[in-house]
């Protein structure tokens, strides 16, 4: 645990050093009264750009009332973790000896999970301060397993389809030209299937897949949040707090854990079209409440895999990410932007054994019109 805290401290140290470095290198005092300069001199000053309010994020504005976008998120899970400790395959995969069976070993081991979300984003500015967004995700998932079951020593299960469609509002609560505070609220509808099935070592050829392979939560979820930006300096600073609250249990008898995400980032403008950024993002999420009806018979015994056990969910995670936003400068492509961000976990404490995240990458395109 101390090691992990040290890791987090070191990352914060990098952020702090970067800010100090940038401040020292950029620091140039402007003249006290620019009106004393000539017009030519004013045109020769290097300008520290400030936000127009419209440009705080990718939200549309009164000038550009609509925005459309596409986002692809890919998260890779590889290996297992219990608490803050990595656990080996041999520890988690039960060897078949009844005397050695525990709650923390299983006949089926999840080796790798690939989760991809292809998200269509549409947004409109209702008023100068209020915008509405709709997100339509398409989910593609695959999990590789190893097991002690004959004919299933190694097997992969897959699921694919529409995820949970969500609608958000974003309200500019306060703006000063350099400081911006937005309130966010959203509702996610259970449009993603929670009865995805595939061929697994269980009897039959089409069995209910574990929670990680379902396409939605099955519940109506609320997502309140708040976003802060400080823009106008050479380095923009931002922070966001976002929650996910599950309303009740789904029709299969469970609800995924509530979730809290906290992130902070620095972004600078290297060129008018080039905006690199660094971010730290922490997530806290609960265990699954209840149990899927098809897994109920395991409840008072042993689960076949960690991903079928509701108690092997939840935990805490901190990711470090770097990204870059490219804004098209040409007239024909004006108002188009592309953003790419990738990162790795620097801290994971999981209610495990549980598949641990290896990396994530997020690419998006936005167009305001």
């Amino acid at each position, binding site marked *: 645990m101390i*090691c*992990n805290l*040290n*890791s987090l401290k*070191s*990352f914060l*140290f*990098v952020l702090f*050093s*970067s800010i*100090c*470095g*940038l401040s*020292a*290198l*950029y620091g*140039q005092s*402007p*003249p006290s009264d*620019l*009106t004393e*300069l*000539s*017009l*030519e001199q*004013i*045109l*020769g*000053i*290097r*300008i*520290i*750009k*400030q*936000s*127009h*309010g419209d440009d705080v994020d990718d939200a549309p504005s*009164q*000038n550009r009332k609509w925005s459309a976008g596409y986002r692809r998120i890919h998260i890779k899970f590889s290996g297992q973790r219990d608490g*803050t*400790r*990595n656990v080996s395959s041999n520890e988690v995969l039960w060897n078949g000896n009844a005397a050695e069976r525990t709650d923390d070993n299983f006949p089926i081991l999840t080796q790798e999970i690939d989760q991809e979300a292809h998200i269509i984003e549409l947004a409109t500015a209702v008023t*100068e301060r209020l915008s509405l967004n709709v997100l339509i995700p398409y989910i593609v998932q695959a999990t590789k397993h190893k097991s002690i079951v004959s004919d299933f020593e190694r097997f992969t299960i897959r699921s694919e389809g529409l995820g949970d469609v969500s609608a958000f509002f974003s309200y500019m609560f306060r*703006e000063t*030209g350099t400081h911006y505070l937005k309130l966010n609220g959203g509702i996610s509808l259970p449009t993603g299937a929670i009865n995805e099935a595939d061929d697994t070592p269980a009897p039959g050829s089409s069995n209910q897949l574990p929670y990680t392979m379902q396409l939605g939560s099955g519940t109506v979820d609320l997502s309140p949040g708040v976003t802060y930006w400080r823009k*106008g300096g050479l380095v923009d600073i931002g922070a966001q707090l976002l929650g996910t609250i599950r309303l009740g249990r789904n029709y299969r008898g469970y609800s995924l854990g509530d979730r809290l995400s906290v992130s902070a980032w620095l972004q*600078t403008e*290297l*060129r*008018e079209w080039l905006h*690199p950024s*660094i971010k730290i993002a922490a997530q806290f999420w609960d265990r699954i409440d209840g149990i899927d009806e098809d897994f109920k018979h395991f409840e008072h015994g042993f689960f076949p895999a960690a991903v079928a056990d509701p108690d092997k969910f939840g935990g805490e995670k901190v990711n470090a990410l770097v990204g870059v936003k490219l804004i098209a400068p040409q007239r024909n492509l*004006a108002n188009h932007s592309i953003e790419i961000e990738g990162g790795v976990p*620097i*801290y994971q404490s999981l209610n495990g054994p549980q598949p641990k995240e290896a990396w994530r990458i997020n690419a998006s395109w936005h167009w305001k019109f």
Partner: protein
Amino acid sequence: MTHIYAVTPSMRCGYFAAACLLALALTPVGAAERITAEEYQAKAALIYKFAKFVNWPADRLEGAKSPFIIAVLGKIPIRDSLKALAGKRIDGRSVEIRAYPDMSYFEPCHVLFCSLGDMQRFSQAQIRLLADEHVLTVGDVHGFANAGGILSLTFVDDHLAFRVNIAAAQRAGLVIDSNVLRLAIEVIDDSQ
């Protein structure tokens, strides 16, 4: 127990080196040699200087003691920076800054800073009113001058630049000094 997330002293040095490299990588070329200023402060100064090179018709400059009015339409971030111009003098008149929440509050002024959205939403009657009152319309969104505004502030790299719609200026009865027009990155004539 040691695991992959443990941080050794050598890794800490590595983090520090990475931070230094990041800081260097993010430094624009020649930044240390240049004067910098915040965007809206510089734009306010440019508007002030620009206005000094514009001749208004005599009927707009009634009374030697009447103020020179710079107004802002709506909630635009430059408003606070423009306030710093209050009390300065243009053509011997003291600068006064006013804010109009929308066009229903409009009163005659010399300069009106407004958004592209406002410019596009102006009715024909409002456009005529602005021209009849000899108002120098200023905006800082791409396309402002093409939409009928007179002075459009923009950027070339990290520097302020401007476009002038000379036909719109003429319709408002304003004469802009030719030396200033030479500094414009584009002089638009939408009269044809």
